[in-house]
């Protein structure tokens, strides 16, 4: 049986109170396993991003638990939660959120800098990861000089530079053309995914569906279907 990286139980999340209350997540339970690439798909407003934020320790649920490494992350204090995100998770945001005033290498080094690694050492490690994503020649350029696909790869390098167990990607292909999007996800699948890492991708891009081990479909804050099996269970 594959080992779960994330176990979510009975998650509920609503915004507002009284007549303005909106239920975004309605009783969601799921597992994400090491070695698998898990997709969460669904139409806009189905609760994908809200669920991803709860799983990432960014948005506090109204109810339910999220267990990572044997601990319910929502019982952690703010600083412990930040430390959890820094050491266990890697993020690729939909809009990348790269720092335009820093070089590509400095952008990649940010998680290491937040872990108090010396500047030169962090940059050295970042260069290694830029090599993995094929952008070592772009290390000294600001992100604005890179193409959309290259920026996406920089964001991926930044997400994996601290060697997180769980990699979270929010709509990674939303700003890319079809071919580039496919190449990025294929790259994640072949180069980044490992037996010690789990990748969770929120997307509504059907063109990359083939790369998922499992796909969870959401609608109206609920899971309406799960397709596939964890990779290491096969």
């Amino acid at each position, binding site marked *: 049986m594959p080992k779960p990286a994330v176990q979510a139980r009975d998650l509920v999340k609503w915004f507002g109170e009284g007549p303005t209350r909106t239920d975004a997540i309605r009783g969601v339970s799921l597992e994400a396993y090491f070695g698998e690439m898990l997709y969460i798909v669904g139409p806009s407003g189905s609760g994908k*991003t809200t669920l*991803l*934020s709860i799983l*990432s320790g*960014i*948005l506090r649920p109204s109810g339910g638990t999220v267990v990572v490494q044997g601990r319910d992350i929502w019982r952690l204090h*703010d*600083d412990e939660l*930040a*430390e*959890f*995100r*820094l*050491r266990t*998770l890697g*993020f690729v*945001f*939909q*809009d990348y*959120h790269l*720092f335009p*005033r*820093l070089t590509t290498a*400095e952008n990649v080094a*940010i*998680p*290491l*800098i*937040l872990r*108090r*690694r*010396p*500047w030169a050492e*962090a940059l050295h490690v970042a260069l290694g990861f830029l090599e993995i994503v094929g952008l070592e020649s772009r290390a000294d350029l600001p992100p604005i000089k890179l193409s959309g696909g290259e920026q996406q790869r920089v964001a991926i390098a*930044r997400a994996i530079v601290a060697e997180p167990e769980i990699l979270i990607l*929010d709509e990674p292909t939303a700003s890319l053309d079809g071919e580039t999007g496919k190449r990025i996800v294929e790259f994640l699948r072949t180069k980044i995914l490992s037996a010690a890492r789990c990748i969770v991708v929120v997307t509504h891009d059907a063109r990359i569906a083939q790369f998922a081990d499992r796909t969870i479909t959401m609608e109206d804050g609920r899971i309406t279907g799960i397709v596939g099996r964890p990779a290491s269970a096969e």
Partner: protein
Amino acid sequence: MASIFTLAFKLLVNDRAKFAALIVGLTFSVFLMVQMISMFSGILLRASSTVLNTGAALWVMDPAVNTVANSIPMPDYVLDAVRSVDGVKYAVPFYSAGALVKLADGTYQSVNVIGLDDTSLVGRLPLVAGRIEDIYSDNAFIVVRDAEYDKLQRPRIGTTFEINDHRSVVVALAAAPVSGLFGIPTLYTTYSRALEYIPNPRFTLSYILVEPKSDNRIPQIQSQVARLGYRALTAKEFVHQITNFYVYQTGVGTNILIMTVISFLVGLSISGQTFYTFILENLERFGALKAIGAKARDLIQVILFQALLTSLTGYGLGVGLCAVLIALAKVRLPDYSSTITYTNLILAFVMVLVIAAVSSYAGIRKVIQLEPFDIFRG
């Protein structure tokens, strides 16, 4: 430097336009603040010029005296009484009064005449031309070569003019460490000649300069003089009294204070607003840092470092700019009275720290309240 501070430094400095705007705003406000308080310091320094130039340890005066320029003459017996006080090494008379000089071309010029004790010449200034013993020659006066020197039409040794229809001859030129406040030249002569040349009321003794046998006898001398109905102040106390008079009993202090507060508020608003805008424009990056795993403490360190770096750079540039402009102004305007003191620098530094603290507080509040979920939602 810790890598988090290097990151903060690059995030700040690499945004050159914004960084330049911050620095210009802070430099300008520091310049204004330092300029205002330096001008005030300069005025206060000049107001005490006679005390500072004379260099006496103790000054005996009427208790109603506020400033050195407004002496209240004392009867001569006070001098004898002070000389008899235990602990006094010596005590000499000191004369200070205004007079009118008629120059060679017939024009009149107000002057301040200082009369020094005939025998000791206590309180005399270092000479830049002439000999001190010539002060005992007939009609002799020493002209102070300060910022007001030109108003006497640049007299040389041997130049003559009239004071109250008395012929006066310049026998030496002296250098004064501090020029006077009121823009009039200063003449030195002996005490007896000053009394002879200038019309006087019944009492003529402006001040008594006292040298104590030792510093620890000063309180005792002060209390003995107080029993006579007069007041003995150390030079430092006298300067302090003059300063208090100008600060609290004239409009000068209030007006300069208002100008200083305005420059502080201008600096605060320019820098605070620019820094807050800088934070707002980088809010999504701070949100990304938070989502990645930056703790509140990390973000506070980043913002405080940026605010401090900007403030201290602005402080250094502002003080430098002020110093350069004061130096240039003094070359062109000899009467320009601005002095940058350590107290000014400390005061401006404290105000800059307040600006940094207020500017960063608003930014920190915003960043701490920021929900990284907003970054996910785009």
